[in-house]
């Protein structure tokens, strides 16, 4: 059997050093490290995420209770914020089923942090600071989702109709399903992945902000331009590194989005997921105005060490764990 780690001992030492640097970074900013559960009674409804689950049997749950491994610590951390924690960060394992490959392991290390009173722009600046510290990068480039589309494809993702976007994807011969695709976001994501992403963030990281409102996820909608959400992503050297939001704090709107996700799930033949009512209750009690971001530590390590595969930076990847 192959008992040897997939990462070299040298890389394992460099991981330890990087984690230390990250902890010092947050320490110096008085952001508190927290430790929230890996298992939860509810889970994400995002139709594109696949969860792991397990069954707890014990006092009070003789017949078994399904527990889900978290796909990110977001819901628990927001409950802490609602309870008055102030600025918090966490370095923890997150779990996503059906994800494995060059940049994916089903179990991976995530850095997630929340800053009260930060806007999208404030948090973009702070992520950039962390990247400069850990990767010695130049200050990042900044474009909005609309600007990056216009620059690299000539398309306006907010104004152009699905027909115009589909024609572009057909002309570029991106995929066979394009001709019958009825979802504008799927087409935009296809173009983003295969036309735009390979060209951006090559020399220095780039932050793409103001994603379309239809791809808001858990971000709030921009008050000045309701076509976009206060959501950003960082890309560097072909790697999607971080995803952040000016957090949605409206409990009703959050509940509506969870329910919409579940109807998409049912339409696509996926299982509807239990909605995290603890999170909804916490939001009802009040989430401080804040911005939060999740960053893949393993990918950060890949970039720091110029590793070609995620397994080179994690001790035992899924094929040998």
């Amino acid at each position: 059997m192959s008992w040897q780690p997939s990462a070299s001992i040298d890389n394992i030492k460099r991981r330890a050093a990087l984690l230390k640097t990250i902890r010092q970074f947050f320490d110096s900013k008085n952001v508190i490290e927290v430790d929230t559960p890996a298992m939860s009674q509810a889970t994400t409804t995002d139709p594109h995420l696949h969860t792991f689950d397990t069954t707890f049997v014990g006092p009070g749950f003789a017949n078994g209770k399904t527990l889900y491994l978290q796909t990110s610590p977001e819901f628990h951390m927001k409950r802490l914020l609602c309870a008055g924690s102030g600025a918090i960060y966490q370095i923890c394992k997150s779990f996503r089923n059906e994800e494995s490959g060059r940049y994916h392991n089903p179990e991976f290390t995530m850095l997630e942090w929340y800053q009260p009173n930060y806007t999208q722009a404030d948090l973009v600046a702070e992520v950039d600071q962390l990247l400069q510290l850990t990767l010695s990068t130049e200050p990042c480039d900044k474009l909005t989702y609309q600007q990056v589309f216009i620059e690299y494809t000539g398309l306006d993702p907010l104004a152009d109709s699905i027909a115009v976007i589909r024609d572009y994807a057909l002309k570029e011969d991106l995929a066979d399903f394009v001709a019958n695709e009825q979802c504008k976001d799927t087409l935009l994501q296809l173009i983003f992945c295969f036309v735009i992403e390979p060209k951006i963030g090559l020399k220095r990281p780039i932050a793409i902000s103001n994603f379309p409102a239809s791809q808001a996820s858990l971000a709030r909608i921009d008050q000045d331009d309701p076509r976009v959400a206060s959501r950003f992503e960082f890309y560097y050297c072909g790697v999607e590194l971080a995803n952040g939001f000016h957090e949605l704090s409206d409990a009703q709107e959050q509940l509506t989005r969870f329910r919409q996700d579940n109807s998409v799930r049912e339409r696509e033949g996926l299982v509807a997921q239990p909605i995290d009512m603890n999170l909804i209750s916490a939001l009802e009690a009040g989430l401080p105005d804040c911005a939060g971001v999740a960053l893949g530590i393993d990918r950060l390590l890949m970039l720091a060490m110029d590793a070609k595969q995620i397994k080179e930076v994690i001790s035992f990847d899924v094929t040998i764990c």
Partner: protein
Amino acid sequence: MATVSTNEFKNGLKLMFDGEPSTIVENETVKPGKGQAFNRVKIRKLISGKVLEKTIKSGETFDVADVLECDLAYLYCDGEFWHFMNNETFEQIAAEEKAVGDAVKWLVEQDECIITLFNGNPIIVTPPNFVELEVTETDPGLKGDTAGTGGKPATLSTGAVVRVPLFIQIGETIKVDTRTGEYVSRVSK
């Protein structure tokens, strides 16, 4: 018909793409943190041999191609079809010219070939890696010459032409690698 989803994709899996049986040569997942994931696959169409790159939505399902490979012994050609037989069941199958393709110059009676069947019909004939064939035509060479010099062309009993060392004579049997079309050795009978 059986179907598989993109999660079950692996190299060598045989699927129907654009109505044609195809095999997966490479498969890579492109998965953003939020939003639609895609599979970038390289496929080879079994009949035309064409290699194509395709991008598909993760989670899509495809029909499994009813493709089967079996070892059958070559019997004879009747001018239109090439006949093969299963040496255990004695069941016979006839392949047309399109399926036989380039393998025709390596077919030796009683040699076991791999026949690829699609919906029960032969679509590819793969000859054994090594075949032994008689030299029917070649220039008389110099006696005592060793392999390693330039060599000379020789025509074999099936019509195949290969380069052989100068010492090979008409009437001799030689071993050929069918994958490269190269001479391997002389066969003493």
